[in-house]
């Protein structure tokens, strides 16, 4: 197991380096730059743009820029944001908590709703519960998450007037838990819904196979209570594909946050990324890429380890 983890860590580090090199190349070789965005249309002149680019070191040849960047990187410096005039790492770090809170809770919600729903539908195979749940899941899956967010704002904020449409209660701002939850609820549902639905359909398929398996039938036959057979024996078999699926999802909550944070003005990484792309804030984008890469690779590694722990038969790397 330890050898396996070490090997995967090494692979992950190599992948991360490749990723960073790719993003660096794409960003630097692209036409256009931050000068125009920094100056704005009124103050833009080619001379001022050239001055800014030389100040930022962007007039150097690309290999020289890459060398400087690697040198900084090894000293733990990830560059200064062009717009916030602060270290890019600090800019990202400030936004991290909001995204992690939203993403983490949404992931939990998706697990807590999706897996039991899938099990329930599989147990009631072919009955109306199964049909209703499956159809509901399919409808949720056909709804773009940004539209789900807007639809929820329409329903809960505009028509029912029970929940705020955007924003959040800042950390340490003296807001009560209830107030925080009011801001959190709609983004949370929006981010979790599609993942919960696909997890439910997935669990349903896996559970159906598990419930039809010989060992499950035997467990029923020897008189083990149905509840125990379902949750202990059948779910144990179905767990591996479901966990793998959930692990793959984990990384994609970041993608969801790009959209959800834009809709709900949630001050996290997603909103920062969209803004930084518009403003060509290269250092911030590089730090975000690094962060996304670490999250994705970490989630994959975690998934593999949990999978191995659940099912020791999975031997191959």
């Amino acid at each position: 197991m330890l050898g396996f983890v070490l090997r995967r860590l090494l692979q992950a580090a190599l992948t991360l380096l490749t990723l960073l090199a790719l993003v660096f190349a794409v960003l630097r070789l692209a036409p256009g730059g931050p000068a125009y965005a920094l100056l704005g249309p009124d103050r833009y002149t080619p001379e001022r743009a050239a001055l800014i680019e030389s100040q930022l070191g962007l007039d150097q040849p690309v290999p020289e820029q890459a060398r400087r960047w690697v040198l900084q990187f090894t000293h733990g410096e990830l560059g200064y944001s062009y717009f916030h005039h602060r270290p890019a790492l600090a800019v990202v770090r400030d936004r991290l908590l909001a995204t992690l809170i939203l993403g983490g809770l949404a992931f939990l919600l998706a697990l807590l709703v999706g897996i039991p729903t899938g099990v329930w539908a599989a147990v009631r195979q072919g009955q109306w519960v199964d049909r209703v749940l499956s159809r509901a899941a399919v409808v949720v899956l056909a709804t773009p998450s940004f539209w789900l967010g807007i639809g929820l704002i329409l329903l809960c904020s505009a028509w029912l007037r029970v929940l705020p449409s955007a924003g959040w209660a800042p950390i340490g701002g003296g807001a009560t838990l209830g107030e925080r939850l009011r801001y959190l609820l709609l983004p949370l549902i929006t981010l979790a819904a599609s993942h919960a639905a696909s997890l439910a359909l997935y669990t349903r398929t896996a559970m159906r196979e598990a419930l039809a398996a010989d060992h499950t039938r035997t467990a029923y036959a020897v008189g083990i209570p149905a509840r125990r057979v379902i949750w202990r024996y059948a779910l144990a078999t179905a767990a591996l594909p479901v966990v793998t699926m959930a692990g793959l999802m984990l990384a994609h909550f970041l993608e969801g946050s790009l959209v959800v944070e834009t809709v709900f003005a949630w001050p996290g990484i997603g909103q920062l990324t969209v803004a930084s792309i518009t403003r060509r804030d290269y250092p911030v984008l590089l730090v975000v890429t690094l962060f996304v890469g670490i999250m994705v690779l970490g989630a994959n590694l975690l998934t593999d380890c949990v999978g191995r722990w659940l099912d020791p038969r999975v031997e191959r790397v």
Partner: protein
Amino acid sequence: MSCRPTHLSGGLQRHPHLVAWMVACLLGLLLLPGVLPLAPYAIDLNALLQPPGLHHWLGTDENGRDVLARLLVGGRGTLGVALCATALALLIGTTIGGIAGYRGGMLDALLMRGVDLALAFPSLFAILLVAAILPPGPLLLTGLIGATGWMATARLVRARIQSLLETGYVEAARALGTPGPRIVGRHMVPNLVDVLFVSGLVQLSRAILAEATISFLGFGIQPPVPTWGNLLIGAQHYVFTAPWLTLAPGFALIGTLLGISGLGLSPVASPQGSVAFGSSGEHAISAVGAGASGTNLVRDTAPFSHR
């Protein structure tokens, strides 16, 4: 597991109304803007944010433009980009999956590592990075959505080709000395039809969601040219005063995606999967859902390949 293309028609035959309806909608979207006197760009400052009524069936937007006209023309944009992107993704996926499956060995291992790498990075993020750097437009958008969506098709095609290599008739053809290209063209490609059909539907859903999401975020097709995605830009601010701006494109998107998922992937109508490869149809629909955040199509095959 039998894999005759004939199974394919089962899914289509089961929902004849749905098929007719989808075809009618598609034709309507493609042809109506040419026939009807629609004016999606006509600004009427006397009719800003009008609710649905006799003059404007679906109301007007913040510039006084007719929402119905913009919706119809926008559908053409969204579906056009999505269809082209799907074709591109299928082409890339089939080529790479086919080569990997047929050749095997080192080349196979190399190509599949490439697939893993491409799957590892959230594709919406990748698309946004590039879309923001290069000048936005329909061609770039189509290329990006297609280029980030081929991985699942490659895996499915590779698996199918590998299983076909084991069949008696391919073995017999090889023993008779039939040249490779002829084996592929005569015996393998016809057996890929069902895989490509399901892959194509999944891709189409994903591509529609991706176009809508990227255009909504402002990096896709730029206004004033309408698409179902960019019609919703800023809609969250208008829900209080003009909910019809939100509802019309939203229902168009959801209706289209539901229709597509009902066409070939309906897990409800046919528990065993109306499509030839067993329960993969259901895995595929999970993949459609993955796209709700825009793009990822990781899930259809990945969960059972313990990498």
